[in-house]
């Protein structure tokens, strides 16, 4: 995406009625993103490789 310092903004005051399923879906996505980033950080710092060696999946 060839962009050059584009800015965008949105504001809202509209209250939406309770939607428990949507709330749980967002929370699940937050945890999934955190888990994915956590594993990426471990990969970068080498911990992932150590763990794989411990598990015998990497020589």
């Amino acid at each position: 995406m060839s962009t050059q310092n584009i800015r965008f903004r949105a504001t809202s005051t509209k209250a939406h009625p309770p939607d428990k399923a949507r709330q749980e879906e967002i929370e699940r996505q937050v945890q999934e993103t955190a888990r994915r980033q956590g594993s990426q950080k471990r990969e970068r710092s080498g911990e992932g490789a150590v763990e794989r060696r411990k598990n015998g999946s990497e020589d």
Partner: protein
Amino acid sequence: MQIAVSIADVVYHVVAAVALIVGGGWAYFKFIKGRTLKERLRVTVDGGLEPSSGLLRVTASCEAENISLRELQIAPEGTAVRLFVHTLAENPSEAREAAWELMGAWSVFGDREVLEPGEVLQEPKLLEVPEGGFAAMMLEFTVYSRSGSYWQAASVVTNRQAGDNQLRR
């Protein structure tokens, strides 16, 4: 003398009745119609895109302002900013709504649970996305209250050079 007392009594009751009606009307418009004590929030997401050596840096400033006269209990669950991208996969033959792909969701405001009347909370996020030729990007900021209600602001930015309709990712 007795007539004067009776007149004063009537005037007193008339004034009391009028005061009650006026006061009740004021309270109705102030608190019921004006929703003064209802949960009200203004949410804003301010995004910025900056390409940087194979990466897209996305800045997302998330802001929530309590615009009611009562405190608002924030639910950490679901209070987050989500980043979506849209890729042009083919030439559309008819008008259609773009399909969005979730790139990630990040919690906002941590464990902060109470927002006082008039208080503004702001949290900046710096997100990094692999530069993959997306046609458009959407930032969506959602705040949930303990009552279950939620407020959401979403902003879309399109790629100005995505008009060639190629699969670019």
